[in-house]
C-alpha cells in the first residue's frame, strides 16, 4: 500500500480530521490530517475507490475492533467517524462514476417537542462515516414533517430519537402517518434514546431499536445479509 494511504489510515485511527487536530499526541498538531491527506491522494491520482477500500474502511474496522476491546472509547470512535465523514465529503464528487456504493439515505430527527440532539448527532456522524447518506432533519420535528421528508427523499431508512418520556409517543405518530401515506413498507424505522427500549419499539411497530449507533449499524447489516 502506498505511504499516503497508510498515513490516511493511521490518522483516521488517531481521529485527526485535519492539521489542527492533536489526536492523542499534541506533537501531531500541524501535521496533515485525514482531509489534507485525502486531497493530496486525489492529486496524486490515487482513485477514490482505493482511498475508501484501502484506507478509510480498514481504518474504521480497526477502530471498531479497538472499541470492542475497550481500548477506544466513544469519543475516539466519534473522532474517527468524523474523519471518515469529512473524507467522504471530499471524495463524493469523485465517486459519482465509481463503483463504490452508497448505502442509501438515512433520515434522522428528534421528535416533536424534544430539543435533545446529542444522540442524534452522534448517530448521524457515525452513520455518515459508515457509508450512509445522512440527512439530519433537526430537533422538535413534527410527525407530518418527518413523513413529508421520507416522501421527498424516498429514504430507505429513518431514525427517530427521543430523550423524554413525554415525547417518545410521537414516534408512534410518525409510524401511523407513514402507514396512512402508504410509505410504511418502503422505510426501515429505527428508534433510540434514553427512555426507549426493545419493548417500546415493538409496541409502536418500529423495525429496529438501537442502543447506540453501532448497534443500529450491526442490526441493519444483519438484516441486509438476511435479505
Amino acid at each position, binding site marked *: 500500500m502506498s505511504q499516503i494511504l497508510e498515513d490516511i489510515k493511521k490518522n483516521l485511527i488517531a*481521529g485527526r480530521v485535519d492539521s489542527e487536530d492533536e489526536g492523542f499526541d499534541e506533537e501531531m498538531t500541524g501535521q496533515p490530517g485525514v482531509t489534507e491527506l485525502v486531497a493530496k491522494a486525489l492529486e496524486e491520482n490515487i482513485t477514490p475507490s482505493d482511498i475508501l477500500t484501502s484506507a478509510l474502511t480498514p481504518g474504521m474496522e480497526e477502530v471498531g475492533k479497538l472499541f470492542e476491546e475497550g481500548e477506544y472509547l466513544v*469519543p475516539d470512535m466519534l473522532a474517527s467517524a468524523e474523519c471518515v465523514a469529512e473524507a467522504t465529503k471530499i471524495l463524493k464528487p469523485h465517486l459519482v462514476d465509481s463503483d463504490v456504493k452508497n448505502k442509501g439515505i438515512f433520515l434522522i430527527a428528534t421528535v416533536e417537542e424534544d430539543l435533545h440532539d446529542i444522540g442524534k448527532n452522534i448517530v448521524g456522524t457515525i452513520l455518515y462515516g459508515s457509508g450512509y447518506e445522512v440527512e439530519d432533519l433537526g430537533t422538535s420535528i413534527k410527525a407530518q414533517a418527518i413523513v413529508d421528508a421520507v416522501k421527498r427523499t424516498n429514504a430507505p431508512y429513518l431514525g427517530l430519537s427521543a430523550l423524554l418520556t413525554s415525547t417518545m409517543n410521537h414516534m408512534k405518530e410518525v409510524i401511523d402517518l407513514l402507514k396512512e401515506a402508504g410509505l410504511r413498507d418502503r422505510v426501515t424505522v429505527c428508534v433510540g434514546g434514553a427512555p426507549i427500549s426493545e419493548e417500546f419499539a415493538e409496541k409502536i411497530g418500529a423495525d429496529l431499536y438501537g442502543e447506540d449507533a453501532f448497534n443500529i449499524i450491526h442490526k441493519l447489516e444483519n438484516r441486509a445479509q438476511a435479505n
Partner: protein
Amino acid sequence: MKVKRRNMLSAEECRIVHEGSCRLLEETGVETENTEAKEIFVRHGASVQNGRIRIPRTVIEEFIKKTGKRIELGAKNARYAFTIESGLPVNFFGTGGQALYIVEKKDDGFEKRPAGSGDLERILRLCEQLENVDFVTRPVEPDVPDDEMDLEKTRIFLRSTTKHMNLANLIQKDKLPAILKQVNDRSLVSFISCVCISPLKLAGGTVEKFLRIVGEDIPVAISSCPQAGLTAPLSELGEIMQVNAEVLSAVILANMVRPGARLFYRGIPITTNLQEDVSPRWCQPDSIRRVSLITDMTHFYGIPCCGTAAVSDETEPTAQAVSEKTLSWVYEAAGGAALINSALGMLERVMTVSPEQYIIDDRILGAVKHLFDAYEDKPTSELAEEAVVQALDMFGLKADGGGREEIRSRIRFVETKREEYSADAVQTQIETITKAVLSGKSSNIFLKASRSGLRKGLLYSGKKIEGPLDLTEIERKKISLDASRDR
C-alpha cells in the same frame, strides 16, 4: 441537620470560576427563543448579538446581588416548615426525580414496572412517615393527560403529605393560578425549573413558566444538569464554569423581573459514561466531586443552594447503591447545600424509584446525621469512610480488605484536584465551550475535546462493591408503613 461546612474550592478558585463564567456570559452569551426574556435582558443592559444574549459584567454582578437570601418553606403540619437562609449551615433532605419506573421486591427478586398516579400517592404517604425526609419533591408524575397533570399532582400531594411540597416542574403555565388556589397557602409549595439546557441555552417554553413562577413570588430552584464530555467540557473547571454561567443567567433574569427573587441555585454538573453508552453518571466519585464543588459557588454568591445527592446509577437496591449514595450524601451535606434534592429512593440515573430504597436511604441518612455530630472536627474523608462502612454493615456487609480499599480510593478521587485553575486554563475552556455552542453540534465538539482528559484519568474507574444485602428488616418496615398509610 446542622453541619460545619467544609469547602473544596478555595476563595481564589471560586473567583477564577466566577471570572470564567462572567466571560462566558459577556463574550459567548446565552441563547433563547423566548422573546420576552430577550427583551427583559436588553432592557436591563444586555445586548443581543448574532442571536445570543451577552450580559456585561456590571449587569451580572448587579443582579446576582439582588437574589433573596431567605426563603421560608411552609408545610401543612407546621412542625415540618423550615427556613433557608443563605450562609446558615443547615441541610434539609428531600425526595425528587421524574422517574418512569418503580422497582420493588417480589418473591423471586426485584420487579420493574412503569410508575403512575397510584405510585405517586403511595411514595408520598411512605415518605410522610420517614423521619429523615424533610420535604417532598415529586418522585414520579401522575399518569394523566398533560393538561390535567398539574392539578392532579397537586391534589395527590395535598392528600398525601403534610411536609413541604416541591411540585417540581410546572407542566402548563396557565395552571399556576389554579394550583395556588388549590393549595390556598402558597408557602406550602415550591417548584423546580429546568430552564437551562446545556450548553448555554435557556429553553423557550420553560422560560415562560419560570417567569410566571417568579412573577408569583413562589420559590423556585433553577436547574442545570450538564454532562461532562457531552454537553459540557470533560474538564472539571470547564464544566463548573459553564454550569455556573447557565444558572446565573436564569438568576439574573429572575432578579430583573423581580428583585429579591426567591431562588435556589441547582447546578448538577455530572459526568458521562464515555466508555460505553454516553449515559449520565450521577453517583460516581467524579460526579460527586463536581456536584460538591458547585455548592462552594453558591456560597460564593450567597444564593441558597438546592443540591442533588444519592441518585444511584444502580438499577435496584444493591451494596454498590448503598456505598455510592452514602458518599454522595456526605459530600453534599459537608458542602453545605441547604436543600438536598433527590436524596432518597432514586435509582437508575433518575429513571427508577423503589419503596425499599426510600426506607434504606432513610435509615442510612439517620446514621450519617449522627456521624456529622461525632466527626465534627475530623476530616471529611474519615467521616465519609466511616459512613459507608456503617451503611453497608446495617445490611449485613462487612467492608474489609478490597472493599475498604475501594471506598478509600473513591474518597481520594472525590478530594483530589486534577486540574489547575488558572487564567490559561479558563481561556482554553472558554474556547472549547464557545466553539461547541456556535458549531450547532456541541456534543461532537465536547466528545472530541474529552479525549485527552479521559486519558488523564478525569473519570473514576474502580470496582463495584458487591455482596447480598439483608433487607429483611426493610421489607418488614415497608409492609408496616404501607399498612399505616392505608389507615
